[in-house]
């Protein structure tokens, strides 16, 4: 069945390879540089091979590495809360848009604008407003709020796609069988949109973790991870930063793989449970 590949295949493959290189090249450089020996610098060539910079990260405790541990903790905390809120509010917003209501257009366009306007302006605007009102930014209201302006529009769009593709007849069937609207949501809609809900949680977490423009001006005291790293870039410059990069990547991959394992195990277990009931 040897079909000869056309020229366009090779051209496109080449383009794709270049694209991948461009995308992942910088990250690979970071991983490589993080494993340098004690004489290592901030650029190639690689000098030595060791894990000394990782050790420094965990043991130095402030000597030339900034406040990595605490800012990591803050990022995690912020990310988790934003993820949960994004998920809850996202589902609610998505459900509310199934019917026209007064002001629904306004809500929709505000969400789109919030996505399009550069984060720095949104962050700046929030910070200014707080200033005008005489309030001080704190992570637990202005910090979270600013990050939600970034993650909620994504959640909303995810919900639109999922709800748009969902067959209406499932809900009609549920109503036909006597379900109240809450039962309909609990037993039919929610199970069907569950992948999307998990997706919104992940989107909320990841977008919060990497976001620095909006949070930057509204977080109050205490940096998040991206803010801390940006700060370090100008100041203490050692390959410890690369070590942070490698570890963060590892952490994120672990998170994604864990989530995938979790969802597939759930599905498998449900299958087993059902076929196990087979008399």
């Amino acid at each position, binding site marked *: 069945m040897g079909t000869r590949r056309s020229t366009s295949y090779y051209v496109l493959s080449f383009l794709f390879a270049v694209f991948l290189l461009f995308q992942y090249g910088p990250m690979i450089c970071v991983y490589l540089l993080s494993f340098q020996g004690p004489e290592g610098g901030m650029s190639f060539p690689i000098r030595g091979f060791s894990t000394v910079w990782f050790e420094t990260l965990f043991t130095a405790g402030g000597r030339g590495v900034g406040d990595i541990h605490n800012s990591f903790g803050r990022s995690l905390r912020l990310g988790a809360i934003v993820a949960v809120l994004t998920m809850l509010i996202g589902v609610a917003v998505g459900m509310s848009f199934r019917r026209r209501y007064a002001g629904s257009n306004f809500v929709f366009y505000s969400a789109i604008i919030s996505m399009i306007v550069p984060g720095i302006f949104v962050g700046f605007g929030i910070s200014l407003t707080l200033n005008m009102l005489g309030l001080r930014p704190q992570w637990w209201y202005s910090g979270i709020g600013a990050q939600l302006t970034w993650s909620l529009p994504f959640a909303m769009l995810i919900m639109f796609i999922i709800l748009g593709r969902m067959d209406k007849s499932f809900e009609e069937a*549920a109503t036909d069988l*006597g379900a109240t609207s809450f039962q309909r949501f609990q*037993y039919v809609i929610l199970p069907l949109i569950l992948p999307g809900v998990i997706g919104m949680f992940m989107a909320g977490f990841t977008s919060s973790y990497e976001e620095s423009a909006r949070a930057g001006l509204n977080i109050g005291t205490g940096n998040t991870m991206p803010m801390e790293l940006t700060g370090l870039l100008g100041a203490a410059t050692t390959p410890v930063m690369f070590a942070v990069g490698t570890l963060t990547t590892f952490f994120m991959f672990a998170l994604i793989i864990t989530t995938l394992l979790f969802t597939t195990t759930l599905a498998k277990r449900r299958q087993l449970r059902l076929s196990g009931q087979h008399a």
Partner: protein
Amino acid sequence: MKIDTDFHAKKLGPDTAAEEAADVAVKYDVELVSVSKSYDGGAKAVDTISLRIPKASYCCLLGPSGCGKTTTLRMLAGHESVTDGDVLIHNRNITDAVQAKRGTSMMFQSYALFPHLSALDNVAFSLKLKKIAKAERHAQAMEYLKLVQMDHLAHRMPAQLSGGQQQRVALARSLITRPKVLLLDEPLSALDPFLRVLMRTELRRIQTELGITFVHVTHSQEEALALSDVMVVMNSGKIMQAGSARDVFERPANAFVARFIGGHNVIERNGRTIAVRADKCRLVDSAPGPSLAATVISVEYQGPIVRINLRDEAGKDLCVLISDTRFYSDPPSVGEKVLMSWTSDDEWPLDAAA
């Protein structure tokens, strides 16, 4: 069996109005009283229809796409609001009643089985909503799965079932709510022709066994003829004719019904419109009685019957159904000029309208 379609024009017989009402209460499962449906003040999808369906009958709503049959069914189910008129089930006005209080259950064209639940859980769903214990509701669900002969596949997910199997599960799921009327939205459309005939028999059997009314929407006249106790032919939101299958076929009310039901020739002559059954028409060389000159357009072999399509001099399409033996004894060829004749006894006068 004469079915009342025009509620307002019904003549009161010797019974008093009260006795009449009481009688009606016993006799009819479903009543539609001048029901209309229009969307946003636009054209009427359903235009002032009235219909009474006797107890425990199999009623088919038949018509072309867009005639309003599915809208009517959905109004019965409560999935569409009624713009005007009343819907009664067992003599209770349920026009605006909520789903649980209507006494109807609907089987969807796409079956709409919940994909995340097994067949058993799908059927037991309505019981779960009523907070019935798991063992109890599973036992009841198995009963209904046995009724539709799907008990051996109770633990499969819908995606693992074939179309016909999914439909049986959907049927069990609807029946477990013990509806007074079961509504079916083109249930056989998604099946292949062989399965269609099998499922048809199943539906009829279950309907007779349970003794409730089925209202079945279809665009297939063959299906409607095979299943109906009451056949309702609709077009453009109005009921063209309602009656037993035999009534509608042998005595069509107007040209639309005659054409839609198939197997009829609609002929205009001498200022009258008549319908003559295609199987009562013959091809002859000369005819003493009524006849039409026509040209043979095509010949279709259909097994025991051969269908000959003709076109008369005025350009109207006609057809003749003759047995295969008669056909092969003297087969006409395409393009041949023939004479189609019938007896005046076989003429059935039609309304000029439609």
